[in-house]
């Protein structure tokens, strides 16, 4: 009996919601969601007895499509609304003659991503909307990943749908004039989605990993489409794949953080690294050099080093220097200081770090103090190191990070008592 591919239902829900919205219009998104949900539930009613069909995805699409056509037929017949009839003809035409799995869902998923990234929505609503409609996560799951109350998230999605209904956005890919700008928003949303999963704040670890993998899944989809395929998209995908290759290695069985130097490099995902390097290569076509390019290049230098000692810190330092020119964010400045320390020693790193102390946006950033602690410890200034670790400890709510810092403090006290 066939087994189900991981997340098939979630991915299929995203495909089917996108495809049906093309014919029903964004104003009928809730109706579309009901049709899709019903198809998924039908599988739950039948498959336990009949077994999983040979082509589960095709089965689901067949059920959803037929139901959708019924709804459109009814609308065309009883309400005599021309709109319904036109959509019916369009949909029948577009979906027949395709083998069940050959319907080009990518077009519709990409159109849905552009709708979700509509400028009338805030960034956090854009992320939630894309996860919901294209990613197939429900409000409860998104709420859990973002540590929001389920009712808040559900309301946020309802409001987003109402907003899109009233703005009258059309379900289509952007015109070439506004394409670059609109695509940049999509890439930004995917990047934020990835970071949300990657930066281990709090929340359920597995769910957060899934956010990273979903961001990769959606970005891969963008790279396969002529409208989305460009050097920046490839660079973002490379960056996410190279970072995500370490997802499993950076946390131990107890959920504690493992530093780069101590990670078991054999547990890095080789396939992801390979695919990431491939996209890094593709991102070099043309003359674009974006923040994504530089970050991907840094991630690649980490990924290809066979041991911690072999990491090309001077190369990484150069990439960070370039990155500071393009995007001088406080976190980049902090990473730049770390790279200085790794390339030229703790004292040089500390000098760079001290300059960041007055940066307002870093004042409450626990990693600044954790880095101070690390560099002071390495240069033998134990008192300053302990004070810095304590300061970092007071600023983080992440339990894994708290345990890590406590362990650091205990080690210092044990060795220097």
């Amino acid at each position, binding site marked *: *009996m066939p*087994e*189900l591919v991981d*997340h*098939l*239902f*979630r991915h*299929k*829900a995203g495909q089917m919601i996108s495809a049906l919205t093309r014919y029903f219009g964004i104003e009928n998104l809730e109706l579309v969601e009901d049709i899709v949900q019903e198809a*998924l*539930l039908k*599988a*739950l*009613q*039948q*498959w*336990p*007895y*009949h*077994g*999983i069909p040979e082509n589960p995805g095709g089965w689901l699409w067949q059920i959803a499509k037929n139901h959708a056509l019924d709804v459109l037929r009814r609308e065309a017949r009883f309400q005599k609304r021309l709109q319904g009839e036109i959509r019916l003809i369009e949909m029948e035409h577009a979906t027949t003659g395709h083998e069940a799995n050959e319907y080009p869902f990518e077009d519709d998923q990409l159109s849905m991503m552009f709708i979700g990234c509509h400028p009338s929505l805030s960034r956090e609503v854009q992320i939630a909307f894309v996860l919901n409609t294209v990613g*197939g*996560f*429900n409000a*409860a*799951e998104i709420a859990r990943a973002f540590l929001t109350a389920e009712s808040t998230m559900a309301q946020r999605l309802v409001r987003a749908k109402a907003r899109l209904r009233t703005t009258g956005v059309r379900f289509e890919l952007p015109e070439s004039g506004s394409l670059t700008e609109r695509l940049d928003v999509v890439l930004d949303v995917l990047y934020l989605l990835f970071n949300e999963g990657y930066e281990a704040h709090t929340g359920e670890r597995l769910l957060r990993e899934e956010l990273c993998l979903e961001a990769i899944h959606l970005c891969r989809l963008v790279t396969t489409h002529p409208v989305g395929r460009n050097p920046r998209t490839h660079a973002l995908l490379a960056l996410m794949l190279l970072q995500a290759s370490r997802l499993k290695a950076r946390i131990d069985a107890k959920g504690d953080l493992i530093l780069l130097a101590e990670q078991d490099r054999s547990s890095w995902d080789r396939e992801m690294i390979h695919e990431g390097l491939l996209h890094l290569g593709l991102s070099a076509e043309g003359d674009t050099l974006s923040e994504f390019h530089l970050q991907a290049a840094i991630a690649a230098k980490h990924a290809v080093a066979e041991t911690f000692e072999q990491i090309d810190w001077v190369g990484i330092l150069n990439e960070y220097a370039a990155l500071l020119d393009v995007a001088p964010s406080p976190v980049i400045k902090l990473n730049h200081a770390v790279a200085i320390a790794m390339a030229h020693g703790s004292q040089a790193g500390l000098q760079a770090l001290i300059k960041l102390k007055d940066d307002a946006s870093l004042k409450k950033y626990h990693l600044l103090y954790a880095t101070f602690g690390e560099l002071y410890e390495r240069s033998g200034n134990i008192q300053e190191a302990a004070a810095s670790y304590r300061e970092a400890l007071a600023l983080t709510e992440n339990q894994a990070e708290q345990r890590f810092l406590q362990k650091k403090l205990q080690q210092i006290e044990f060795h220097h008592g």
Partner: protein
Amino acid sequence: MSQFMLFIRNGEEPIELSPEQIQQAIQRFSHWAKKLREQGKLIAAEKLKDNEGLMLRSRNGQIVVDGPFAETKETIGGYFVVEAGNPDEAIEITRECPALSNGGVVEVREIEG
């Protein structure tokens, strides 16, 4: 060896399941059935059509037909026939039936043979 019939009744209105949760529920069923089949214990599994049942009864010499019933609550959604050495073993098998974790109710009856 005796045969037992497991009637699967749909429970109260199902909670709102996400696509991922629906898939997981199906996979639980699939693993449960696979295990039984490998042990040679799964004899039959059939789903009944939804909302199509009629009830016939004789009232004052007349046959009265009721239904179909729109209410899905407590109706039998389908059944499994399993083989077990004794009623205890049949209950053990039923205990692991995934319908129970989806809010369903399972009735176990021994087939008199």
